[in-house]
């Protein structure tokens, strides 16, 4: 696992360079850390009441989004593109089901049809970078082989030993290599001729997927999402129950003992870091549970990777628990850490001390506690100073 560089390059401008204007624009687009907006009302000068904090010169704008609960994918789908955009830009919630993070399928599709659009999506930027890197490696291998062949020839004809090098003026390095024009053209050229803008009309088949934790965070705390189950609006009680039960492992007979329900455990951790102002995103591609961004993936790389560990305070409750997985707890796995890893331990209270119906409402969340352990490599050769 490398917790190194999950990052989505900004998708807006075409220029890959980080210009000041671009950064300003990114700052403007992603200015709000939560979907709720605070709007200053034009109520004139502040009254004495306002100074005392009783009047309201500001009001809250709540974007009421709609989502559809989908138990099979354990997610909530936001179909409306505008609402998807709000949830993505204000707090980086969700992920396009056909995209890496921000829903960009439509843009990519249009780019293909028009053979190059106004800006490149993150996926396209990555694809281009990878193609270039591939080309560089091929060029380098070719140059190295040429140098080796030359040395072989000298040895065969003159008997002189020239040790073939792997670097040198003839061999391109990452610093000196430039993508050739041919590649650049190849990257953008397409089979079909470009279609004028007016003729392009494609239905956006993509939706934003919210994880259960993200959806519950939005509904429970801010009420800015309405969740539908087929054609009925789900109540808070129904949401709590449904999210819990679809995260359950069906093997265990007594659901009351499901104190290590993965929805509850993960929601606690999600809420914990969100409430501290972190942007929390899934980290499955780095083999961790969550990634923490200071402001969001468009601004910087993830600062921390989080692994969630449920811990039973009463070890008798642990019997047969699916949380009791040892696959991760070997040193071999930990030896692959690149940067900083957070083990977030969620302590599960003993069943004996809990009321019978504790899992029936979110009040259960208050019973757990969270402890963090920060793991980093310690390199003695660098710590001597």
């Amino acid at each position, binding site marked *: 696992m490398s917790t190194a560089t999950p990052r989505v390059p900004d998708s807006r401008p075409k220029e890959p360079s980080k210009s000041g204007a671009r950064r*300003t624009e990114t*700052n403007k687009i992603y*200015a709000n*850390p939560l979907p709720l907006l*605070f709007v200053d009302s034009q109520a004139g000068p502040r009254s004495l009441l*306002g100074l005392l*904090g009783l*009047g309201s010169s*500001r009001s*809250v704008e709540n974007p009421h989004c709609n989502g559809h609960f989908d138990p099979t994918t354990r997610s909530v789908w936001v179909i409306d593109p505008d609402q998807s955009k709000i949830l993505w830009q204000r707090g980086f919630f969700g992920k396009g089901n056909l995209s890496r993070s921000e829903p960009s399928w439509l843009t990519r599709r249009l780019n293909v049809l028009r053979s190059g659009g106004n800006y490149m999506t993150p996926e396209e930027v990555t694809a281009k970078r990878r193609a270039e890197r591939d080309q560089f490696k091929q060029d380098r291998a070719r140059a190295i082989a040429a140098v080796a062949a030359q040395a*072989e020839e000298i*040895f*065969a004809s003159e008997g*002189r*030993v020239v*040790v*073939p090098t*792997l670097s040198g003026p003839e061999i391109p390095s990452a610093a000196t290599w430039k993508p050739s024009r041919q590649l650049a053209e190849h990257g953008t050229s397409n089979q079909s001729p470009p279609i004028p803008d007016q003729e392009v009309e494609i239905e956006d088949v993509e939706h934003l997927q919210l994880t259960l934790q993200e959806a519950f965070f939005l509904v*429970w705390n801010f009420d800015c999402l309405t969740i539908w189950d087929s054609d009925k609006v789900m109540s*808070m009680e129904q949401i709590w129950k449904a999210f819990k039960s679809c995260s359950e492992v069906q093997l265990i007979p007594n659901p009351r003992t499901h104190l290590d329900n993965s929805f509850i455990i993960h929601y*606690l951790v999600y*809420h*914990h*870091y969100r*409430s*501290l102002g972190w942007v929390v995103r899934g980290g499955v591609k780095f083999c961790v549970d969550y990634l923490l961004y200071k*402001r969001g993936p468009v601004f910087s790389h993830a600062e*921390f990777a989080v692994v969630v560990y449920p*811990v039973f*305070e*009463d070890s*008798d409750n642990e019997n047969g628990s699916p949380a009791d997985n*040892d696959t991760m*707890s*070997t*040193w*071999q796995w*930990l*030896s692959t*850490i690149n940067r*900083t890893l*957070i083990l*977030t331990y969620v*302590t599960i*209270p003993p069943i004996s*001390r809990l009321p019978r119906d504790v899992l029936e409402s979110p009040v259960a969340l*208050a019973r*757990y*506690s*969270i*402890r*963090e*352990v*920060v793991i980093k*490599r*310690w390199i*003695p*050769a660098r710590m*001597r*100073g």
Partner: protein
Amino acid sequence: MDDELEQPKAVEKASTSTAQLKNDESDDLSDEDEEAGRDWAKLFNASRPVIPKRGEKEFEPAPGGGSGLQLHILDRARNAMFTTLRADRTISSKGISYAIWYPALSRSHVTLARGTYFSSVGYSVAREVEFEPEDDGEDASMYHERYLQKRLELLPEETIYMVERGSLLCWRAPQNSGPGGLSSGLKVAGLEHIPGPPMTVQQVYSEVIGAAGLTVEKLQVYTYLRRLGYVVNRAEPPDAFYPSAAPPEPVPPEKKIVRDMVVPQLTWFQRIWSCFGSWPGQVWTALFGRGFNWWKPVSVSRWLSLGLNYPSLFQSLRFLSSTRHDRPLQRSIPPQSTTNKSPEMHTTPYHIFYNVYKPSTPFKKSAPGPPDFRIVVVNARTTHLPTLYELEDLFNVVPEQTWPPPRQRNTQPQTSAPVQRPQQASQGQVPNVTNNASNSALSTPNQGDGGGQQKQQGQGPPQHQPRKANPFVALKTGRKMVVIATVDCGNISFFRFAQGDFSEWPMLG
């Protein structure tokens, strides 16, 4: 080979053998080409054997076998390596120390200490020894009496380390002999009563490992850190004479990693504002603490206008119990009575074994200061990751961290350019604040720092720069830290486990 090296006569032999070696080299080299620049063959000219540096990795074999160039280069390099290994390793007889290993005591008694190593290795123990007169009188037994004598002793790992690096000749005390009394031997300083040659390195390994809690893993960690220049001591004194590390100094408040340290630098306005930030939440819990609606934990409509910003919204989200390292971890069942775990789980392998001092830390052997690092050594193949309980137990015996020393680049402007640029610094903050879309004072460390800088400029040249409260450094450092060294069949990986403190350092609010 070892036997020869252990004996002092190897030193004499060395001069001839290296001369011989040089002749051999030139013979060997004569048929090889001299022009290869970076080649290991060059190493032959060194008077002392040097471990060759590896070259770059070669690529695919040439099609059809090629001209044999690759094979030639490989053979040449391999021969150079073997020749280097074949050379005698020698030490000066003037720098060598002598010791006797007492299996019954699990210590070796240094009879002749030479060199600077003993400023950080070994400790003095008062042992009851039998007194024997120097020159044999007519009746030696008349003078026999027992008394306490202070003498220098080495721990097992120190013995192996010193023997292996060629600084110590170690004899083994006969099985039946007590701590002091020995009979008949050779006339070397302090070794009059020991028979036979010193132990070989191999013998020392087999004798000493296993004594006084020393495992192979612990030895490997010890020697690795020693070779890097660290001073390594036992954390748990193995006997009453062993100097134990000084208790940690109380952390001075300015070095403590707490977020509060920036608060005094806030302006009065910011301070009042920051009080208001958490005010609605406090009032709310005070008034409706019992009737907290768990179906609707955050209530937008009840916010007062001063709280209508993102920082206070984030603060009101923190209603769940979060990180509480100060609260003891509840164990409903003591670990001994757990039934479903195997018995070896009860005795945790996670104990701090070594105290480590940086090479730069002044070290006094008789009174070691608080260590720079505390190290737990485990076998990676047989040990699982520590449980939360084991980690908590470790953190309970470790003091709180101080700030890591500032980086060079941070201290640079302090000396070279005493005049700070607060304008730029505060401009740097501006996008941050506007992005958060809140004009309220964030009581984040950044802001506090900016405020401090401005204040300083008003006072003139700054005398004491407040330490940069970088939340990421604090988060990564943690409150308490312990290093766990895992040894996987000889490969050592070190991990630092720190008690996280994310609640203390929110990104917003």
